[in-house]
């Protein structure tokens, strides 16, 4: 339990990398990149967790009555999620143009840039 969340984060990152490297379809590759990124969310939130604590929202909680988890990592993760969505959108837009210009989205068939 002490290290499980960290190991899960590492596993997700590597699984995403595996999918990215072996992908036969660029849309699938972009999806794998999103998987890689979810590893960062898991890692950050796991780092900020505190046993027996509650969410750092004080609208129905008396300040100081209970320990709260780390709010900073949550803010970082929020930023990260928005970044991820935009990068995905951007890369998908590029994949669309590749499909139009090359007639394929299989990276094995893209032979324009090499050497």
């Amino acid at each position, binding site marked *: 339990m002490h*290290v499980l969340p960290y190991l899960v984060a590492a596993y997700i990152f590597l699984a995403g990398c595996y999918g990215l490297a*072996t992908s036969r379809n660029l849309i699938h590759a972009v999806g794998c990149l999103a998987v890689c990124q979810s590893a960062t969310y898991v890692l950050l939130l796991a780092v900020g967790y505190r046993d027996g604590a509650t969410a750092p*929202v004080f*609208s129905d909680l008396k300040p100081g009555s209970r320990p709260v*988890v*780390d*709010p900073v990592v949550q*803010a970082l993760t*929020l*930023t990260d999620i928005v970044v991820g969505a935009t990068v995905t959108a951007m890369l998908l837009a590029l994949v669309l143009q590749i499909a139009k210009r090359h007639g394929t989205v299989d990276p094995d068939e893209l032979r324009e840039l090499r050497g």
Partner: protein
Amino acid sequence: MSRRLRLWLLAVGGAGVTALLVAAGLDLPSFGGPSHPYGDRAVRASLARHTANTIASVNFDQRAYDTLGEMGILFAAVLGCVVLLRQARDEHRAEPEPAEVARPVRRYALIVLPVALVTGIYVVAHGQLSPGGGFQGGVVAATALHLLYLGADYRALERVRPIGLFEASDALAVCAYLVLGLTGVLAGTAFLANTLLPYGTFNTLASGGIVPLLNAAVGVEVASAVVVLLAGFLDQAVEIEEQQGS
């Protein structure tokens, strides 16, 4: 490079990175530990400025400068997608045929649409009090608008969604955020300083000083950005066609 060679490289690199990450995981403070110096400071700072939702305080007050960068990313991505998904020289637009929508789907969509829209706005408005805020509410509201595509048809969606307006509101929301930040510099305190407005009563809509304003700017930006992004992709998927024989 052959597929086999790539798999070998991947195995070597993957093994190395796995070893590194596992070793690091064993050295990390164990999960759920009590030491969070920055987090504790952030909670105190948030309460000192009457912001009930500490995450909103971190996002829009303590680390508002990060959020500026994030807005920049969203803004750049929207601009980038508009540029990348523009109609190329050898493409033309095809009017999509109005499709018949099944009645239950239509009824469902038209009932859920206003509910989702209001939920989105509610979530934005209560950003500094309860979980949620500009990002979450903005995405919900923008996605809700696209239920129209499901419920009615593409042209109905296009009528309620003047893209130019949304692009402009996206940019203007960024301007608003920046101008709010610059007032701090003009007043002689600091960029994005939350010292000009009164902090209000704890746990009310107007609490937190500058936080609700920045939150609203982000909400508008995110909503417009998502609308424009989805519009770009819908446009490609439904309307734009390559010239035959090109």
